[in-house]
């Protein structure tokens, strides 16, 4: 990870340089990302490559439904998705980001390999279930029997500009936390009463 100074360097008299950096400026310049950005930026989203593996026999899948699910622990999910931000020049860093409030820009399947002898429907968090089988069940994607595909397939791509505008205007508000917002504040939301 590279740290790139955006401004002209300023000579410091004090040895305690980290003390001169307030939390806000540190998060702006020392964050993760190609351009050193952090926080909600439509142009510079975070990117993660995740490898999903499911391995089980049909007997196991019949008896234990958990075998058909790839599900990392809470701690591992934080390690995967949260953003590391350096908060001081001594190298102190923190993992930041609320996993319950993620704006998904896109999800792409880069490669898929299946040895299942039948078509398999996969449901993924963050991907709409818009692919349907003859059973009428919606999946995020359906993988053909014994498929081996290295072509990247876009599973989900959302226009997030409205979301960012909304988040800028009403920071912290989502449809899920409206109930917990005080009613006085709620009254300022753009409802058409």
């Amino acid at each position, binding site marked *: 990870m590279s740290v790139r100074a955006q401004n002209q360097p300023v000579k410091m008299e004090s040895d305690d340089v980290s003390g001169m950096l307030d939390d806000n400026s540190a998060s702006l310049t020392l964050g993760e990302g190609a351009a050193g950005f952090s926080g909600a930026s439509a142009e510079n989203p975070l990117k993660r490559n995740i490898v999903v593996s499911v391995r089980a026999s049909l007997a196991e899948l019949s008896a234990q439904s958990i075998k058909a699910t790839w599900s990392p622990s809470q701690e591992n999910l934080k390690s995967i998705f949260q953003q590391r931000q350096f908060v001081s020049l001594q190298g102190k860093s923190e993992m930041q980001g609320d996993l319950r409030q993620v*704006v998904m820009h896109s999800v792409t399947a880069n490669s898929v390999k299946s040895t299942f002898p039948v078509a398999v429907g996969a449901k993924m968090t963050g991907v709409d279930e818009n692919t349907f089988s003859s059973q009428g069940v919606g999946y995020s994607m359906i993988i053909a029997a014994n498929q081996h595909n290295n072509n990247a397939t876009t599973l989900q791509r959302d226009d997030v500009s409205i979301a960012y505008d909304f988040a800028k205007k009403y920071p912290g508000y989502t449809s899920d936390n409206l109930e917990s917002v005080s009613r006085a504040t709620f009254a300022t939301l753009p409802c058409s009463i």
Partner: protein
Amino acid sequence: MCATSTATAPTCDSSDIRSVLLQENAEQLQSADVQQMPEQMVKIAQPLYETLMPLVKEQVRAQIKVCDMSKTAVSVAPAEFGSWEAVAQRLVKERSAPVIQKRDRSVAAVKGSVEDVALVKAEYAAKLADIEADVYHSPCELHMEVSACYNFL
């Protein structure tokens, strides 16, 4: 095509318009429980709040789609079957069919010898059991590399 109105609208400031709209909406909702408060806030009664809240939620959901990635998971299911058991049964049936046909031909070829028929049947029963075990207990694998682009609110 657009029509241009030549009538001159009466001039009024935005607060007047807002009050009129608010009043119209209140009348439409058949409720007088909507009051305009200072700082552009609107006070509404509890029953109206409970009526409007789902609509507001839907409106907000349409504007800001947020994923809960704290429970990220990928689950797989047979796309064309109701259950994994149904998949296994279908596969056993498909793979057993030629073996069963071969067994029947072999039994017919023995021509009535009870001991030989039993021997042939036992031989093929073992083959069918192998097929079933193979279908049920061979591990199947699915590997996917997925890229996710996202941001935190």
